[in-house]
């Protein structure tokens, strides 16, 4: 048996070496981020009244969908707040990190033929998978301990050692869960893209299911890894069992993937592919057609995904109405502005902004696809034929620009269709349509930034994700964390009017669009002047 795991230790050291930049970056940024937050939270709400109001607001089912159920709301301590605000988000970040790291060393290595080289050396058949998973486990354990002791060392009364260690352990357990899950998908799927795709789809779907479950059905929430781990009720009741159960499930998944690994051939998967066409369709006769064809399934999947996300947000709007009706405190907090708008409608505008930012993810993916094509030496096939650089970059840009309203339409239709079913006094489609469409200039600005980077700094296109991440954070958490106003003005989404509560300022929208056009023109000019890498 040990032969099948020969040289696992060496492979682990090798994995650590190849990731010697990536790993420390992930570890330090996630750990520091968490500790900085722990440091910040106690200063946010200092008086008892503040806390009460906050706790009342956090009972909002919409908040529950986004952040998970609030525990200890009756005595909303700093610790309870920390866990409620941050645990689920950090868990998602841990999941993303684990998926990316694991996919790189499993299916990606296999597809690129690196695994073949390793397997030709005296390594066991199961060693590469085991080494990758163990490396992921160790990384997560180290992060869990750093966060645990780090938070405890802040010395806040309500963030004690036991709770802090549990906080870290919950995140570590989720990380490990996604390490083995990605390992499993690496066995099931036939290629690297599918491995990452299925893993992320799993993450997103379980996040949404948890959201629906948290407001409507405890059982639904409990079958998802996120819902499960939130039941640790960190800093309130400190239950350790969800951590142990998650780890046991992870072990079982790992053993199962080892079994699958042992019975399949190198390069094969269990989800099979069918033979394709001998001749190309008419779509494949111009560069934009190729760009569309390559991203066809991705475009469809994201559109459906955003529709589902929209409708899952919409499904809680009914609960929201009831919640506002039942809470006197909330009613007092929101003065009647006399414009006849109810609380739900106000909330809808925030939801729509968040959906627009989420919708920017696929839109950016569609334009940045050109960059990944270049990295894989595939743009040279196009550019060495009678195709200009403008028409190549133009194709990808146009797809992204048009995808923006399509995606918006999908998410707002989703929101509307489920809102109609659950609300007594539903939001009008017209309102949602306006709210969705005013966000377009901001989404186009993001596309334009990507185009600019593709032209000017092709090796730095990742910055667009950082910027979108910043935007998401500021819009999502800005109010709750009392971030200064200017943080909001550093992103194009900060200039988008909140429909229906604010008036449309056409001038601002035109300026945003102009900025987008300007950035794109600069990007195109630079793209025409630079060397193509492949």
């Amino acid at each position, binding site marked *: 048996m040990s032969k099948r795991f020969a040289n696992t230790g060496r492979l682990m050291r090798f994995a650590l070496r190849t990731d010697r930049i990536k790993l420390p970056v992930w570890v330090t940024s996630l750990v520091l981020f968490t500790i900085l937050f722990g440091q910040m939270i106690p200063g946010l709400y200092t008086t008892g009244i503040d806390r009460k109001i906050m706790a009342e607001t956090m009972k909002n089912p919409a908040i529950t969908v986004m952040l998970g159920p609030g525990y200890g709301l009756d005595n909303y301590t700093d610790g309870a707040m920390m866990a409620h605000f941050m645990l689920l988000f950090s868990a998602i970040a841990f999941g993303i990190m684990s998926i990316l790291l694991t996919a790189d060393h499993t299916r990606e290595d296999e*597809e690129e033929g690196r695994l073949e080289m390793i397997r030709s050396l005296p390594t066991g058949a199961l060693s590469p998978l085991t080494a990758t998973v163990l490396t992921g486990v160790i990384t997560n354990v180290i992060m869990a301990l750093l966060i645990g002791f780090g938070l405890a060392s802040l010395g806040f009364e309500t963030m004690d050692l036991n709770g802090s260690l549990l906080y870290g352990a919950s995140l570590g357990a989720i990380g490990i869960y996604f390490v083995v899950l990605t390992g499993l998908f690496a066995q099931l799927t036939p*290629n690297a*893209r599918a491995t990452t795709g299925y893993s992320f789809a799993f993450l997103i779907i379980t996040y949404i299911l948890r959201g629906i479950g948290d407001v409507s059905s405890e059982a639904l929430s409990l079958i998802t890894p996120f819902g499960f781990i939130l039941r640790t009720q960190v800093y309130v009741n400190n239950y350790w069992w969800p951590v142990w159960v998650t780890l046991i499930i992870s072990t079982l998944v790992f053993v199962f993937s080892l079994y699958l690994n042992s019975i399949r051939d190198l390069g094969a998967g269990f989800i099979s*592919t069918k*033979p*394709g*066409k*001998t*001749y*190309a*369709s008419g779509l*494949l*006769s*111009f*560069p934009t057609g*190729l760009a569309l*064809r*390559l991203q066809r399934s991705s475009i469809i999947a994201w559109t459906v995904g955003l529709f589902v996300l929209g409708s899952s947000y919409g499904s809680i709007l009914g609960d929201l109405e009831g919640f506002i009706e039942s809470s006197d405190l909330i009613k007092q907090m929101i003065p009647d502005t006399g414009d006849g708008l109810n609380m739900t409608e106000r909330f809808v505008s925030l939801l729509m902004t968040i959906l627009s930012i989420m919708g920017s993810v696929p839109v950016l993916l569609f334009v940045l696809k050109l960059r990944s094509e270049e990295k*894989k*030496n*595939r743009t*040279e*096939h*196009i*550019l*060495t*034929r*009678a*195709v*200009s650089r403008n028409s190549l970059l133009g194709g990808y840009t146009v797809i992204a620009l048009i995808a923006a309203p399509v995606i918006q339409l999908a998410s707002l239709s989703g929101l509307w269709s489920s809102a109609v079913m659950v609300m007594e006094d539903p939001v009008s489609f017209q309102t949602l349509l306006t709210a969705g469409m005013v966000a377009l200039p901001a989404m186009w600005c993001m596309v334009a930034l990507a185009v600019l980077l593709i032209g000017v700094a092709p090796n730095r296109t990742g910055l667009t994700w950082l910027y979108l991440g910043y935007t998401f954070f500021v819009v999502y958490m800005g109010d709750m964390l009392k971030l200064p106003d200017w943080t909001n003005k550093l992103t194009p989404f900060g200039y988008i009017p909140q429909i229906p509560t604010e008036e449309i300022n056409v001038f601002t929208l035109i300026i945003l669009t102009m900025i987008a056009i300007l950035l794109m023109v600069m990007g195109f000019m630079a793209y025409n*002047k*630079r*060397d*193509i890498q*492949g």
Partner: protein
Amino acid sequence: MSIVTVNHLTKKFGKFTALDGVDLEVNKGEIYGFIGPNGAGKTTTIRIMLGILKATSGQVRIFGKDAWDDAVEIHKNIAYVPGEVNLWPNLTGGEVIDLFVKLRGSGNKNRREELIERFQLDPSKKCRTYSKGNRQKVALIAAFASDADLYILDEPTSGLDPLMENIFQQCVRDAKAQGKSILLSSHILSEVEKLCDCVSIIRQGKIIESGSLDDLRHLTRTGITVRTKQPFENLEGLKGVYGIEQKDHSLYFQVDSEELGNVMKYISSYGIVSLESAPPTLEDLFMRHYKEDGGKV
């Protein structure tokens, strides 16, 4: 009539000089061999010709047009096969061939079928399942199915089996017969010898040798294996003789091409029993330059 003219081409990547004053000329109806060790600058030169990379200085003109400014116009009459063919894993070989042909403009449908048949490619398979050789076939079929005037082939046969290499060589000859020009970069010197009219050797970004194969042969030495009735008295003292080795009953040595006449006169006076002369190969020439290179480093 020259199809490609490269004039004092220089390309720098940061501080590194990849090409340092490269000159090339490919004439109509000519097969031009472009050889050199790995990293010498072959692919960089080709990529500048294709307008993918921008020259730091110097000029590249194809069909009399500027390779950078008029790239799109030029590409309508060019077929290119890269050395490392990376394809879209989720498209089939057939789809990629059609795409490539259509993106260039015109193509010949019958020729496509014929080439698929000749290269024995299954066009309904997804590119992810193709081996290196099969991916190269896709690029070659797309190139030869199009009516280009200039074929730029960058190590196109590195993954092909000998049978397929033969078919490739036929395709190149067919193209030449139709008056097309071909620039062939290759490591397989026997292939270059078989096909090319002219050859340039590039090393460390500089063209170190250039001319027709016959011209180049004069620059190198002929290998002679000879057996004579009487032993030689002073062979090593003769001008232009190198590397004498005793092989069983015969003697092997190399002669500078220009001294060949004198040496033959000398050895014939010793009564030749058998004589074999091996013509200088491109490999000898290449190795000589390559070794010089190694000596310097």
